């Protein structure tokens, strides 16, 4: 019982907050002046994974690290880099894990091929449901068993 209670207290102990509590950098919670650039930055941020979160993008996370990464993305876009360059820079550091838009590779090929494959298989199966004949077969039970 004692062990169980201990387990309980552990389960409900507040998780250590790994936060500095310092104010975030300027561009973490403010937008770029140029709306076109902000639009590009925003679209990119929605596809970047927050590395310390439970499956959120940096565009909608309150984590400090996500805030810093948003600032980094905005600064680089501001400086004239393209979203692909910024994404590439991050992939170089963190691997494909950092992007929610998995780049095409031997590993992701089945993933990207899946939709097309599924449609092909679906069409093949659906084809069986359609009568080859015309009105004559109407109302009759199918004969193939």
């Amino acid at each position: 019982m004692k062990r169980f209670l201990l387990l309980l207290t552990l389960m409900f102990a507040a998780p250590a907050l790994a936060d500095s509590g310092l104010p975030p950098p300027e561009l973490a919670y403010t937008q770029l002046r140029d709306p076109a650039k902000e639009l590009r930055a925003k679209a990119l941020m929605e596809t970047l994974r927050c590395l310390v979160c439970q499956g959120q993008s940096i565009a909608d996370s309150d984590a400090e690290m996500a805030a810093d990464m948003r600032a980094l993305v905005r600064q680089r876009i501001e400086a004239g880099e393209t979203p692909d360059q910024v994404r590439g820079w991050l992939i170089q550091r963190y691997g494909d894990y950092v992007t929610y838009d998995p780049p095409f590779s031997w590993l992701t090929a089945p993933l990207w091929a899946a939709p097309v494959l599924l449609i092909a298989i679906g069409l093949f199966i659906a084809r069986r449901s359609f009568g080859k004949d015309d009105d004559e077969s109407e109302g009759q039970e199918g004969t193939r068993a």
Partner: protein
Amino acid sequence: MIAEGGLAALWIAAALALVQLTLGWGAARSGSEELITAVRRIAIAQGVLAALAFGILILLFLNSDMSVLLVATNSHSAKPLLYKFAGAWGNHEGSMLLWVTVLAVAGACVALFERRLPGKTLAATLGAQAAMALGFYAFIVFASNPFLRIDPPPPDGQGLNPLLQDPGLAFHPPALYFGYVGLSVAFSFAVGALVMRDVGPAFARAMRPWVLAAWIFLTIGITAGSYWAYYELGWGGWWFWDPVENASLMPWLAATALLHSVTVLATRDGLRAWTLMLALVAFAMSMLGTFLVRSGILVSVHAFAVDPTRGSFILALLGIYIGGALALFGARVGTIRQGSTFQLVSREGALVLNNLLLSVLLGIVFIGTLYPLVAQAMGQQLSIGPPFFNKAGIPVTLVLIVATMAGPLLKWRKDKWSELGRKMLVPAAAAITVTVMLLVVAPGISLNATLGLIAAGALAVASLVPLWKRNLRRTPMHIYGMVVAHLGVAVSIAGMASDAAFTQERLAAVRVGEVVTVGPFEAKLAEVRPTLGQNWSAVEAVLIVRKGDGKPFEINPQQRFFTDPVTTTSEAAIQTLWDGQLYTVIGAGEGSGKDARWQIRLWWKPFVTFIWFGGFLIAFGALLALVGRVRRERRSEEAYE
């Protein structure tokens, strides 16, 4: 003593399930009328006992009986009554008990109301339902007993996670559960039909109301869950393609396909094997979802009580039931005669296309959700998120919408291309109108959003066409149901596309007294003040918002601090107007005194409410169809007698 009573009720219910399974087996083989009647009665008794056990758990929570471990860890005597009540299922053990209760009560309802199926098939169906209940009873009494005592009892409970103390979340899980587990009935029907090799229109008509009912709950559960995530997570998103969300979407997609294929089977005796397959898949997806959510094998933002041991138990049940049913399918479906085939240009043809596309969507969500595990198995890490689901899913969805427009306009059996073309003129005109309007008003929006708005406009019009030139008084209720549900899809898609196309965002660090603008709004940060709640403190912004020359209104987003456990949550303040929502959030402050600046996030989201409004319309349409179908069956039964 009352907790022990609950456990006893569970044990007896489990014993009854075992008897029900055995007798059901016997009845299905012998066809003895007495046995079939006995199975019916046992199923009802089992349902009553399971409901009793769950009722006892609710009672324990309402009484704040802290000598029960589950109550002590998930409730608090000072908690509002609503959350005491909801606490009963706001945890793993309680929700599994709810699961098995729904399973048993659904079986009892089948036993009570189902009169159309042949006795043998019904017995086999009830036997299958009992077999599933048995596994879950075992899971509960051996690995998730909600009635465990704690000695000595603590004076007060641990309370409920503050994030879960929300009316939306109190009722969203049970709605999803009713949907998930409601699909077990379709599963059992399919198993019963496979065992008895009895698949046809009668079977489809018997199954249809159950699928509809489960689907209504699923639709409501998903819609409510999406809205909850929207206002609780504080960044204005309403769907994140998160594994837990996908876990609820997959059974919904399968059930949507099933709902349409079962109509083909009921009306035209086609798609026999396919309908059986979908019934199995729909519940398989429910179980897979439950497994994914509780095992923690995928990373999710919607944290849940994760436990690998329990995960393996659920996985074992999944293997037994779904694997067993698919093996049965393989062994038996070859001996079931293929249903009738049909013409390409016909209602059936459109419904086959609908099924094909829904299944492809299901496949996309399924693969996208599980593929990170494939990568993991190969020692790689992969993130699959919105870009994949959008790229793969949106084109399929757009074609699906076209099928949804065409389907109801086509005749059963056989129609002509020319006829279809003529009827499609009206939605086509709507599509052109929307296109022109968009080109004039909003030429810069993304292609997906543009196509979404066009499709929504065309579908909204097309969904009403089946009522054209009909005597509206004599139109059957299920037709209205279909019209309303399809209109709901159009409304929901319009909301999604509008949110994607027209949302305006404003992030700023603001001093008190400063004004920020977003879309047509001017918001002045009038004050930032501390405020206190029952178990939290907060900073609250006073934003005075004015739209053009309109009357200003006040809106108060909060940043809440909970101490037990230490959590900070953003409470978005949302102002709903007829044409959209103003979504406001206050973040951290910086500096002090006059120089203090506050992070303010504002979104103007035109017509975003359509997303959830459409969801509820879909559910309402399904409800109309359900009532209409049941009434109609009853009438025809009376006429028959």
